[in-house]
């Protein structure tokens, strides 16, 4: 084993790049001593011929994927940014006119945008918080479950996540709908003719419940991976020192899986900000349940106001980027899910 590879304690990360600097698994580094010296000096380590050759091959191999990404991601995004500068309705192409940033001004000064923004934020915060707690509990159950039970348990917990969001949205809608629903008969504290989809608050409750039901398995799976990374010897040591379950949870388990928790939070937050299907199926955005993604859909697809819709899409894109940057920079989320040392 090369001297540059730090040993890992107990986890199966052999061969991984533990410095977390995003380098390729093919490690073109020169000797460890040389590198450390270069790092201390604040410069980059010099590349050997072999390393340079491997880097160039790497770039060549990545190039087709990069070009495809440009085509399918960057091009539509840039086109949307360009379209957002026009007043442009699909059914009146002759009346297309350049309006500069007017669309953005219209959107950002409209209460509808801010209400959708607040609704999206509300749904995101509540669902992600509930999912984190629930997901962690489920992950603990899966982690601790006896070996024979574990596969069955994991499958059972994962089933909601395997269901298509639109299908689960329909299922929840029909369960709560006055005509076809049965939930009112089950709940003692609501009347039989309580209309869940008549009000903003009760509609949001159903929307969030279905969202939580659907995506808690995802978060619990990510947390399960994090739990598996917590070194057993640390747990053992804490147990020997007489730490209780809660003390071990707070002082050993959670700090050691911070990266996993942050990655889970980041993924779910980005997911929740884009929430669309549940709202589309259950309320179609009525009664103040409209989210940002739904607003973008309505302007672009339904109203065919391509300019206005593109501007909303660009704003939504910026919001997603902002959240990702915040998580990565401020909360120091390491997307390769490695621990520091």
């Amino acid at each position, binding site marked *: 084993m090369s001297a540059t590879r730090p040993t890992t304690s107990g986890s199966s990360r052999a061969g991984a790049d533990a410095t977390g600097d995003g380098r390729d698994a093919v490690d073109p580094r020169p000797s460890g001593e040389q590198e450390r010296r270069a790092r201390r000096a604040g410069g980059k380590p010099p590349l050997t011929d072999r390393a340079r050759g491997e880097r160039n091959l790497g770039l060549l*191999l990545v190039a*087709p994927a990069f070009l495809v990404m440009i085509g399918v991601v960057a091009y539509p995004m840039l086109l949307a940014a360009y379209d957002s500068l026009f*007043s442009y309705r*699909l*059914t*009146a*192409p002759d009346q297309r006119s350049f309006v500069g940033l*007017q669309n953005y001004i*219209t*959107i950002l000064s*409209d209460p*509808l*945008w801010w209400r959708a923004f607040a609704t999206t934020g509300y749904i995101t915060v509540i669902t992600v918080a509930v999912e984190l707690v629930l997901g962690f509990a489920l992950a603990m159950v899966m982690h601790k479950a006896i070996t024979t039970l574990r596969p069955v348990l994991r499958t059972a917990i994962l089933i909601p996540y395997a269901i298509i969001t639109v299908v689960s949205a329909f299922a929840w809608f029909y369960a709560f709908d*006055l*005509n076809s629903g049965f939930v009112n008969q089950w709940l003692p504290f609501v009347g039989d*003719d*309580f*209309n869940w*989809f*008549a009000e903003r608050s009760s509609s949001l409750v159903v929307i969030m419940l279905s969202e939580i039901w659907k995506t808690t398995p995802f978060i619990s799976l990510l947390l399960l991976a994090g739990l598996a990374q917590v070194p057993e010897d640390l747990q053992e040591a804490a147990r020997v020192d007489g730490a209780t379950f809660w003390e071990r949870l707070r002082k050993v388990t959670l700090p050691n899986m911070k990266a996993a928790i942050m990655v889970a939070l980041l993924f779910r937050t980005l997911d929740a900000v884009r929430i669309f299907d549940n709202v589309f199926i259950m309320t*179609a955005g*009525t*009664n103040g349940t409209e989210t940002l993604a739904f*607003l973008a859909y*309505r*302007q672009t*697809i*339904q*109203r*065919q106001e391509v300019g*206005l819709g593109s501007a909303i899409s660009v704003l939504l894109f910026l919001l997603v980027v902002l959240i990702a940057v915040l998580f990565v920079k401020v909360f120091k989320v390491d997307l390769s899910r490695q621990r520091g040392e």
Partner: protein
Amino acid sequence: MRRTAAVPAAVVVAGALLVSCGSGESQEVTADGTPVLNWYINPDSGGQQEIARRCTEANQGRFALNVQILPNNPQGQREQLVRRLVAGDSSVDIMSLDPPFIPEFSEAGFFAPMPPEVQEAVSEGVLDGALAGATYADELVTVPFWANTQLLWYRQSVAEEAGLDMSEPVTWDQVIDAAEATGTTVGVQGRAAESMTVWVNALVVSQGGDVLANPEAPADEIQVDLDSPEGQQAAAIMQRIADAGVGGPQLSTADEDASAALFESDSGGFMVNWPYVWARGQTLVEQGSLDQSVLDDYGWTLYPRVDAETEPATPYGGINLGIGAFTDDPDLAYEAAQCIASVENQTYYFASNGNPPSNAAAFDDESLLEDYPMAPTIQESTQLAAPRPQTPFYDVVSTGIQRTWRPETADPGSTPAVSTELITEVLRGEALL
């Protein structure tokens, strides 16, 4: 352990670009060379497919009709057709269109111009309301196919108990009073959907008012007339239904089906709805979930009046046939549309699928009365029918109404004003919708 290095020598990037053979497109033909005309239809119970078959058979090899099914709801149908037509899709030969979209399509140049002789032929004998709905800017731009209209449905026993003489015209106030007195319901569509625009438009136009003063004007010049005595009266009626509690628990989310379900329930008294509720009731009886005695108790009459002295402007719906602007053979497409909308086919479509004709002559078939005893009322109602605002910006007007009118919060003092302001701002590009 040593592994033999089986590293792939090269990565082959197959840039398989699908290049369409776009140039020199020619019209679709069948195996024996007959030109194929695509007819984009709204989903139904198979009636349009059968009509396509009949027309294909009848024209002796001049064209073959091929049916393409559009999404289920009118909004989805509009979206798909717009996308195709914006791209200049020549495969769109004939379209089954919901009438409110006609001005927008016409303004965008999506229809092939209708030859004068066709205009004359397809407007002969068409009921006034249906003709108005197929027309934009004083010109017939689509072929009237079938015409829907809402009726006032009631339980004969309830009307009798309330002492309401249904052989005379009735007003909304009378209907609400009767339901209140008998502890029954008035089924309306309070959902924030297209049906809300249908309702508001009918209430306003029934008083001689208009939702828009100049529907054909450019967006920034359109004058919204909802904040008027007629608009206030419309809000007052909605408010009364909510306050009296006769709208049922689902009032603010009720669509046509929910209203029908309410009417079929024990508390059913009155309902405004399309004629399909009759066929729906018969199906439920066959399935055993509705008692025959309930269906026997069904009564129908013209849509309620707002003002006792003024005839109602009944809601108008249905389907018209538009010929795509980019079709390879518009003349053939118009010939096919005339076949589809022939009196004979309209009668067939009513009898088999329950969709009422737009042509008066199609009502003449006496046998229709057996299955659809309300046919004469439908005919009379279609004659009185008033289309929704005939503007290319119908979508803005309709969504604006859907967002601001709600039975529970309807207030003559604020709803019409708020609605007018929102729609006006959106039309001027100053607000989101």
